[in-house]
């Protein structure tokens, strides 16, 4: 894909025709990566602002409103503050692992942005194993979290790291199982293909969410499990501010802490984007066929719609966070293994049977065919 982009760029700008193709391809890759990373960081910064604003609204407060208009530049001020803060490494910490951990977490979270289908043609890399890739790369987070907890040489951090390991490993199973129905329906692991499979029918009823009752349940199961995978309340036991002080990143300060922080918000977006792509029709614009539009408009519309859906889900996460208390660690495990895992398996079975019996047709399509 990068190569084709490079080819079209060379074709469009004749002055570049002398440059070898591999250089152009590399250049395009770097630019795309930079764009995605910029988006990710900007999003994460703004998300922290929105989170605080949402918390303020819910708690009858105002939230940040001093830096910039409506406090919009608060995240910049926070970022600068974190950059300038002293980088403290505890004397008895494992220095190498302590320094490494935040990068692993950050990479694990932001590398997943690569396969997020932002629009009709807006995807950094349309991997044919997209869903697998996200699952795999986001597992890097747990390694980082565990390293952070271990290398801090702090018992609270260690407990937090262990909790995180147990939690994320447990919840990978229901997350994967809950995503599989979408993969089954599309017959592909590529996120772009999954999105394409949900087109038509006014753009809403083609969504996997309404495909059949099992996929409907699947979406909520995925969302719940994903909440746990991103360590958000009510499943934020690795941080558990009131129990473990702040869990695995208790010893981190300055920019290293910021990496953990950004990674959390990056994770939130990734799981929301995945939910959007797999169940909410991805970038499909309601009542409009984005692919039929001119390339520029199609991309713009689809980007807007995708972001709206995904950020809506992120907002929902914030809303949940400021409402619910926290589960205990054993209850969390019970919830995964006794509730989510069996139900997701049952769902997967249901979807498979549905596809077998009705030849891949969803309820809305059946109703539509009734009316011709």
């Amino acid at each position, binding site marked *: 894909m990068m190569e084709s982009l490079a080819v079209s760029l060379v074709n469009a700008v004749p002055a570049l025709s002398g440059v070898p193709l591999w250089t152009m391809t590399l250049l395009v890759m770097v630019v795309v990566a930079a764009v995605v990373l910029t988006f990710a960081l900007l999003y994460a910064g703004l998300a922290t602002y929105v989170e605080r604003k949402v*918390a303020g609204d*819910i*708690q*009858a*407060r105002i939230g940040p409103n001093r830096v910039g208009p409506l406090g919009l530049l608060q995240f910049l001020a926070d970022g600068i503050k974190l950059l300038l803060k002293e980088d403290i490494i505890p004397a008895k910490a494992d220095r190498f692992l302590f320094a490494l951990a935040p990068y692993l977490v950050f990479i694990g979270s932001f590398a997943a942005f690569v396969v997020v289908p932002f629009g009709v043609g807006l995807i950094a890399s349309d991997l044919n194993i997209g869903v697998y890739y996200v699952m795999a790369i986001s597992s890097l987070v747990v390694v980082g979290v565990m390293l952070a907890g271990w290398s801090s040489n702090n*018992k*609270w951090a260690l*407990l937090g790291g*262990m*909790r995180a390991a147990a939690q994320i490993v447990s919840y990978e199973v229901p997350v994967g199982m809950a995503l599989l129905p979408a993969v089954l329906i599309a017959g592909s692991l590529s996120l772009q293909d999954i999105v394409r499979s949900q087109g038509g029918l006014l753009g809403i009823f083609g969504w996997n969410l309404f495909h059949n009752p099992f996929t409907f349940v699947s979406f909520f199961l995925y969302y719940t499990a994903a909440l746990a995978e991103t360590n958000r*309340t*009510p499943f*934020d*036991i690795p941080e*558990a*501010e*009131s*129990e*473990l*002080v702040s869990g695995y990143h208790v010893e981190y300060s300055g920019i290293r802490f910021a990496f953990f922080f950004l990674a959390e918000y990056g994770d939130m977006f990734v799981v929301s984007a995945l939910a959007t792509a797999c169940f909410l029709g991805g970038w499909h614009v309601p009542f409009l066929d984005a692919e039929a539009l001119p390339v520029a408009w199609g991309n713009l519309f689809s980007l807007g719609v995708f972001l709206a859906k995904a950020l809506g889900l992120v907002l929902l996460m914030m809303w949940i966070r*400021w*409402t*619910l*208390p*926290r*589960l*205990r*660690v*054993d*209850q969390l495990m019970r919830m995964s293994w006794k509730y989510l895992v069996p139900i997701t398996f049952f769902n997967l079975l249901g979807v498979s049977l549905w596809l077998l019996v009705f030849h891949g047709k969803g309820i809305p399509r059946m109703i539509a065919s009734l009316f011709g």
Partner: protein
Amino acid sequence: MKARAEALPTQEMLINMGPQHPSTHGVLRVILRTDGEVVVNARPDVGYLHRALEKIGERVTYAQFMPFTDRLDYLASMNCNAAWAWTVEKLAGIEVPERAEYIRVIVCELNRISSHLIAFGSFTADMGAFTPFLYAIRERERINDLFEDICGNRLTYNYVRIGGVSADLPDRFLEKTKEFLDYFEPKIPEYNKLISYNKIFVHRLANVAAISGGEAVAYGLTGPNLRGSGVSFDLRRSEPYSVYPKLDFDVCVGTGERGTVGDCFDRYMVRINEMRESVKILRQAIAQIPGGPVMAKVPRAFKPPVGEVYFRAENPRGETGIYLISDGTVNPYRLKLRAPSFVTMNIFEKVTKGLMIADIVAVIGSFDIILPEIDR
């Protein structure tokens, strides 16, 4: 499986929870011995906030000790103020005007609501839900406004005096209190909807650290912690003082609503229900309050007769007992404060055996301890 567990030696971990920890409600230090997440032993280590209040009490005059009672339990200063006044009045045999007694009961019950609000709020915050805490603070702020009107301060009130109260109620105070009650009463069901009956919240609290009624009595628990274990014992009812006999209210007890009797959830619900009862008491007191003076004649250089006295009052955290020996001078000869939170810490080690670390936080929160009272 078993053989493998033996081959992999594990050891207990010693963790220091506090004195700087977000949910030990101040400077309580709990020494945890844990096996992974499971607590083998949790020993509370108190004393980080010791200010020798009892000794101070022996050095200052009876009237001068009043501001120090504010610092005994700073979330229920009015109750501590009044308890001190009642003790000294009992010792000296001072007749207090009835209006003053009603004012005392009104401020005490308002303060009970405000204290229980903090207990409720900080408890939910310990459980991970931060929002109810701010709602509780919002309501408490209104009570603070009322107290600011009445005495000028928002936390350490120093309002009650030996022989009465320092000043009569300001204009419109009773109306404002009524307005507050009308505003506050519908908030209690809202709290219940928002958090009390939330599935996660109930799961975190039900069947955790259940204390049977007999145990609670044996360990000297008082107040909501005792009533949470199903023992109907409220000093306002069983050993009435002030004008409480004239007021009608129910004694809330734990019923094992969502688990066993005497678990964390019961102790929590007792507090929620007591707020409702306090509203009931306040409405009656406002309706009944007579006119008249608010201060008895007490000489400025107040010297009670030689003797000793023990008085106990039902404070938000339980029975605050004050034992006082007078040698006829202006200073008490000996002062002993029985602080409910301190007594509660006795049972802490017993009930936390075998719980998880997260439960320790729940237990501390459900006991609603306050550190200045533990350490005095």
